[in-house]
């Protein structure tokens, strides 16, 4: 019996294959599809979620490793209807092109701001270098992170 806590809700996954990456448990079993599949080998960051507040690549984290810990996905980032400052900044800067990588980008950025509320460009580059944007929206991502940081609510 495997149980995981996602965005504050307990999910009983029954006798799930414990080697299943958290990514597929979230997507196929729980139906939270905001977390994306991009490479399967922790190279692109599209699958980034928080495990006890730390950004991890869910495609390479077995569901067994997430038991007993708090998982936050893109669907759980806003406070009800009130968007996280990063989400608002992403809209204000019109960051997405195809948008596929953006939930992973936002989750990486959220972990950065939780630890470093006023990051420099170098801090941002370091924290975000694990996330590929195939469309090349990096300039707007960086600008949006600065905007969210300046809003002081992140």
């Amino acid at each position, binding site marked *: 019996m495997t149980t995981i806590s996602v965005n504050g809700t307990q999910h009983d996954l029954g006798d799930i*294959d414990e*080697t*299943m*990456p958290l990514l*597929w448990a979230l*997507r*196929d079993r729980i*139906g*939270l*599809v*905001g*977390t*994306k*599949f*991009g*490479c*399967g*080998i922790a*190279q*692109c960051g*599209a699958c980034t979620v928080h495990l006890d507040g730390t950004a991890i690549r869910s495609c390479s984290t077995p569901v067994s490793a997430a038991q007993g810990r708090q998982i936050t*996905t*893109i*669907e759980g*980032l*806003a406070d009800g209807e009130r*968007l996280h400052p*990063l*989400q608002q900044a*992403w*809209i*204000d800067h*019109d*960051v*997405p*092109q*195809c*948008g*596929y*990588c*953006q*939930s992973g980008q*936002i989750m990486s950025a959220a972990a950065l701001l939780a630890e470093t509320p006023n990051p420099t460009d170098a801090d*941002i*580059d*370091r924290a*975000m*270098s694990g*996330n*590929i*944007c*195939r*469309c*090349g*929206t*990096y*300039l*707007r*991502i*960086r600008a949006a992170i600065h905007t969210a940081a300046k809003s002081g609510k992140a």
Partner: protein
Amino acid sequence: MSAHYTDTLAAFLDELPSPEKPATDLSRRTFLQASAAVGGGLMLSFALPRGASANNADAFAPNAYLRIGTDNKITLVSKNPEIGQGIKTAFGMILAEELDADWSTVTVEQAATDEATYGSQFAGGSMSVRLNWDTLRRAGATGRVLLVAAAADRWGVDANSCNTESSFVVHTDSGRKLAYGDVAALAATFPIPAPESVPLKQPDQYHLLGERITGVDNHALVTGQPLFGIDKAIDNARYATYVKCPATGGRIKTANLDAVKAVDGVIDAFVLEGNNNVQQLMPGIAIVADSTWSAIKARRALEVEWDETDACCDDSESFEREAQALSQRHGDTEIVRRGNSQRAIANAAVRLEAFYSYPFLSHAPLEPQNCTAWYRDGQIELWAPTQTPGRGLSNVAELLGLDESQVTIHQTRIGGGFGRRLINDWMCEAAAISKHSGLPIKLQWTREDDMAHDFYRVAGFHSLKGAVDSAGKLSGWEDHLISFSSDGDRPVSGGGIRATEFPAPLVDNTRITQTLMPLKVPTGPWRAPGSNGIAFAVQSFIQELATAANRDHLEFLLEIMGEPRWLESGNAGALHTGRAAGVIRHAAQAAGWGRELPANKGLGLAFHFSHAGHIAEVAEVTVNEKTVTIDRVTVAADVGPIVNLSGAESQCQGAVIDGISAMAGQKLNVSKGRIQEANFHQYPMLRMPQAPQVDVHFIDSDYPPSGLGEPALPPVAPAVCNAIFAASGIRIRELPLLSSGVRLA
């Protein structure tokens, strides 16, 4: 769907259509007649398709692009696939502008795949705005005229005394206002005017067009809502993978299907022979399981012996050696010959020869190929992230032997196209697996599948010769393009070169020839096909010639353009030397061309014309040893009026990053017909620390609007490589940079 459609689509994608070409495509629509307008652009005359609920008193839907409910809800319809080019927002803006709708309250929805209603629906060739600008403006304006007529009727006043403002009709004299929704039911009873009779706004009346508007799906994207093909969930769907021979064309000799079926979670495993059409269904093993993970895991238990008798056995190193050997002579086929290039080169004050090359590339959209399909009762329904839903529909109908009316395709948002999703092989696989298994299935490719079974950007090799006369003028030009053919006759997609390719029409003595090597590796359009390689070779070599002749590159390039004129008489989709010179000057000035720079810094310039867009770029780089930092790229673009300033700027920035990404480190090697690179650790994508500042300038232009999905990409590689030369003296003639021993910091 006729073969003709596929032909014209291929023409869109492989080369810039002349006005006649889109007209050919448009003529298949029942409601559109296009003709080349005097002075350029497309003039369209048409009857708009009627809205589904035109006669419904609860809603006003004068055509298939807009709907206004009596509850004041305004819905606009975007007909083409959204692949990240921002078309859903751009189409919505064009409609809303002419409808004079309050943007903050409109909803933009994705159209059904219905080419009888909407005409061709596809995302490719940077054609969406070019082909639909006029249609959408008239669709919006028609709605506005009817709403005004209805309000005037209600008030008993002359319609000419009324105006509109942000979803209201206003009676100018009295200041009375009626919301669109309040007159929607009445407007629905009025006869629909001829579209060409409705007045359109003048640019100074625009509220929306040219503004910065955030994407209509952005809220859903940043909160993780289901939008993409991969997000589609249907009840009781099973999960499938499909394993093909890594060498295209291999067949299954033996496969241990029983062992696979015994794996936990596997529901079925079976062989599909396919129809031997690489764009539809090649032989493979389908594994159907209870989760994506079970299906992926079961592949590890699969053992296949392939029969590779007819399979691809190409080898990229052999291609490179053969191309080197071929470069010593002229090509087999003459593309254009004018004057006497041989004599011009022999008599030149400065003559140069160079061999340029670029490799095979993968599209690598971040959303791996996937499709949900449900075959039941002789019909099939698919949810497909495709750039060509209409073509996909006919592919599936042909493969399954169905009438096209039995196939329904839902357009989903698409996690990146870049040309890969113009081809619907993965859609055909999903359809065949659902039919064979009798189950609703969701097919999921892995990244490794995606990289192993792409329709690759074809490699290319240019043997160039150039001459500069004693006056310092470019006097001779020869380009022998060594490329590939898969049919022994025509070049593969993106592997050809046109007689009008810059600078050929502008040099008195010019000769372009072509030699095609046989190829089995599947190829297809990759963002700015042809242009993405040709620009690198041509624009780099022009800087080589300018340097050898002691000329300033900017002056040399402007001199080649000469007097402002269209290069193809009567073709407004062709290069205009005045527009070209305009963007070249603009980019150079904005980037501070000619200023003093430290010894290890340099500026590089390049221009390329494609997809009706004139674009110049200047890169500023710092080179330490063989390590390059790209400090800034300045883009100047003349693409006519801008629809969404935010989206347009973003497309240019993204194209520059994409072009740098490919230029810096991407190369696919082929051995025994197999692509050797499997995932991003072997095929590096540019990451944030390496992304330069990209400044974008749009020329204020009253030419017809053209697309921006592609044309900003081709100039960036030569601009950066020319800057590397200026900074360090290192000349890059082989891409990627890594192959030349140069890397990004």
